[in-house]
């Protein structure tokens, strides 16, 4: 049977892609962020996940406002990235896990999470950068299943709903009849705000509390509405919904194996966590 071996959560700021592309990860500006990854890579080399479920938010590449799903799941044999408006490099494509995608869709919709299924999906920096950070040679050793959460158009799904979705994903994985090790990745955050007179807003105290809560009190963030999350973490800080969903997939004992927090990368409080899962 399948099992979730752990979760990695990390910021996905587009500028990280620029730094990787230019090979400047060791420069003083970038080092404090990139230094968060070697321990996670060592863990991955030891644990060797077969599949990654990537909980992320599209930034206007695959979805536009003509059709804006609250929750969507990729069910494609392959995923590739594309130009997001500033001519970013094309990365090696990602092999999908169609069996797991359709199993998740069956199970989640069966549990009244009405996912939009996507047999074609282009993936943006929210998906590609975390994988490039985990596997810098970009020879992806994992098959992937993207899960998309709307953070573009309000109302977004509530933190409470996202938590429940994560729990349902966890149950679905546990019931998947293939003997695979599943890594869950939650991308984005933490506090940042790109637009308005409040642009540049960062809330270190809230971020630290949120990171702590993932092991000490995982449902802590579910007390907030979408607008309250914006008030506390910024308009884009609400991407923490991806982190929360990823955390909620794990019903067993969750241990913080590594974490890193650095302000700022671009306009963002950049954070990374590795959570181990023992069923």
């Amino acid at each position, binding site marked *: 049977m399948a099992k979730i071996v752990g979760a990695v959560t990390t910021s996905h700021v587009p500028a990280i892609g620029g730094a990787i592309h230019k090979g400047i990860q060791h420069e003083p500006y970038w080092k404090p962020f990139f230094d968060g990854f070697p321990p996670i890579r060592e863990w991955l080399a030891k644990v060797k996940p077969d599949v990654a479920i990537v909980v992320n938010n599209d930034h206007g590449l695959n979805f536009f*406002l003509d059709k804006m799903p609250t929750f969507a799941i990729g069910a494609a044999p392959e995923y590739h990235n594309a130009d997001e408006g500033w*001519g970013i490099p094309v990365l090696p494509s990602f092999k999908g896990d169609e069996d797991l995608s359709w199993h998740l869709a069956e199970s989640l919709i069966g549990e009244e999470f009405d996912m939009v299924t996507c047999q074609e999906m282009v993936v943006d920096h929210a998906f590609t950068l975390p994988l490039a950070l985990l596997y810098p040679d970009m020879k992806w050793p994992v098959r992937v299943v993207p899960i998309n959460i709307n953070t573009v*158009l309000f109302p977004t799904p509530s933190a409470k709903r996202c938590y429940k979705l994560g729990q349902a994903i966890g149950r679905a994985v546990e019931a998947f009849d293939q003997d695979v090790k599943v890594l869950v990745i939650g991308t984005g955050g933490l506090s940042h705000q790109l*637009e308005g007179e*409040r642009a540049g807003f960062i809330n270190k105290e809230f971020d630290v509390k949120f990171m702590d809560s993932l092991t000490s009190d995982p449902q802590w963030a579910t007390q907030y509405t979408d607008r309250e999350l914006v008030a506390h973490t910024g308009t884009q800080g609400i991407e923490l919904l991806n982190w929360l969903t990823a955390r909620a997939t794990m019903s067993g004992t969750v241990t913080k194996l590594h974490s890193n927090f650095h302000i700022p990368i*671009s306009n963002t*409080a950049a954070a990374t966590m590795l959570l181990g899962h023992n069923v």
Partner: protein
Amino acid sequence: MKSPHIKIPGTTIFDGSEARRGYALNKMCYSFNEKANRDEFLKDEDAYCAKYGLNPQQRAAIAAKNVLQLLAAGGNAYYLAKFGGIFGLDMQDIGAQQTGVSKDEFKAKLVAAGK
């Protein structure tokens, strides 16, 4: 209709009402995912804006490349970022412009948030 939601200073929540007002502008900015469209815009800005049916407020905000005006015209940050990309503006440029400080001052503010 009065919104039952909390007000957050300096922040526009992109909800249905913004999405209705901003649709043409956001649709145009979404098209900038493709280089051919960015090139077409740069070749003839007027014609490109007309093709997407921008209203006068949106047209003026695009001409001014002013982010606060673009937001006021219903623009969404994620799509506007693609418009900014045409001119090589990064997020600190955009942040500085919106908050009325220099880019260095804006960056210093971000660093200070980590202390």
